[in-house]
């Protein structure tokens, strides 16, 4: 509750609280799989992790576009980040030429979750 207004305030959470994941490379593209820690979180991830939001999050880190695929059967989203690996493979000069740490780069994203949503999800309402 917001003590001044009496309203429940929206909560800021890091994506890593709601999801885990794994990333890997294909040429100059990184894929980031984002997996809901609880099935109930999946609709929220689908709603909040838009292509636009992810593109904005990785601004300055990727030169190409972002694609999103849904796997509701696994409570997961798969993102392709194009132009993420400085050419990829052995051409890349990056420490993380295989994109292994892009999973947590994604998961450090801060999300604003509407008031009460997480609590409602957790109590199964």
């Amino acid at each position: 509750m917001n003590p001044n207004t009496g309203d429940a305030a929206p909560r800021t959470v890091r994506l890593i609280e709601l999801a885990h994941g794994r990333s890997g490379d294909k040429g100059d593209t990184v894929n980031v799989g984002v997996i809901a820690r609880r099935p109930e979180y999946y609709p929220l991830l689908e709603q909040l992790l838009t292509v636009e939001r992810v593109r904005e999050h990785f601004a300055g880190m990727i030169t190409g576009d972002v694609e999103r695929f849904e796997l509701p059967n696994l409570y997961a989203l798969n993102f392709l980040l194009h132009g993420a690996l400085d050419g990829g493979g052995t051409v890349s000069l990056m420490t993380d030429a295989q994109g292994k740490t892009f999973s947590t780069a994604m998961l450090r994203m801060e999300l604003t979750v509407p008031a009460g949503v997480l609590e409602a999800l957790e109590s199964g309402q």
Partner: protein
Amino acid sequence: MTQGSMIRIASGQGFWGDLLTAPVDQVRNGPIDFLMLDYLAEVTMSILQKQRSRDPSQGYARDFVPLMGEILPDCAERGIRVIANAGGVNLEACRDAVLAEARKAGLAGRVRIGVVVGDDILDRLPELIARGHELRNLDTGEPLETVLDRVQSANAYIGARPIVQALERGATVVITGRSTDTALTYAPMIYAFGWPEDAYDKLAAGVVAGHINECGAQASGGNTLADWESVPDLANVGFPIIEAYPDGTFYVTKHPGTGGRINRATVTEQLLYELGDPREYITPDVIADFTTIRLEDAGPDRVRVHGVRGRAPTDKLKVSISYHAGYKAVGTLVYGWPDPVKKAQAADRILRQRLDRLGLRFDEIRTEFVGWNATHGPLAGPPPPDLSEVELRVAVRSTDRAAVERFTREIAPLVLTGPPTVTGFAGGRPRVQDIVAFWPALIDRREIEPFLRVEVTEA
């Protein structure tokens, strides 16, 4: 193996260089019917091609041979068959070395080695191009002709059918070149269950099982992000084992008493690894739809997988081509407290000024600050206050070898001619590395499949 019922396919190696004890443990710590070993990454073929050009008896995954010497007696005793893409670009040499190991172990007459030949199209490239196959780069659209004089290896990804043939002809060890990683796992299912070529849902299930097996312990608790600190006994991690049934249902599990973890979370992480469009996981035998996978926890370290759907494959095969694309080198120095990032940034500026003054041309100079922002870039925010040290990492790339070589001599001088409290230079001058780039392309499968040959030889 009980024909027609359930078979166990164990993963023993997720890449060349993986845990050496894993395949031995898979064979000795419990029941399995097949052991699959994945040795090939995209650039491995070019390394092997280079080894073969220096020595005609080389060009395969050498570690495979002593491993076979160690496990073949157990495998022969218990009827375990081995399937490995260890043959690289010299299948015959790999086979002969394993045959020698088998005889040395007193297994003459008890080991039959099948090889699948024909994926290597390096020598056929000029002829294929002359006949109008442009082998355009799937990422850039350029025709292969532009780099043809620098090509080092070229291999078509082949599917499970030739492996199945080898098994049908009694091979107890099947050695392939560039077969797909997943085929190593589902070929035994086709063989044991008699799945026809158009059993697409079952084949797709096999592909999913293959995707889980192909990275070894990455499906059984290794590199697991979900609650990683609670994953038990990774020192003794058990690699995954697929228990496959004729209807395409399978369980992912591992031997009792081993470390690691298999549950929905660890298997899901692996399913998403290196995934593209989940509805189109393309293999030579089937296109699997990963959005149809059903996963359920089915007991401790046991996950049930079912419901997978698939459809007919395309008329193309993927080709993996590697070519020489210049040179690179990486120099590192460590800067200490106070203000390590500021010092490393100053050193980077000085280095770049000197490279510039020398008139050296690079396609790229990349600077990273390991310990601050090397992996997460701008997401890392400003350097944390009172940081103790940071590693300056400068990498260069050029088609001019001399420029890269000169760069390697500009790192050490920074120690006495740059910012203070610098260390971490004991490793000596950076090494100039050849860049072997990957060129993905497609080819009509009718250009490859008629050339595939299966040979089975007895020890």
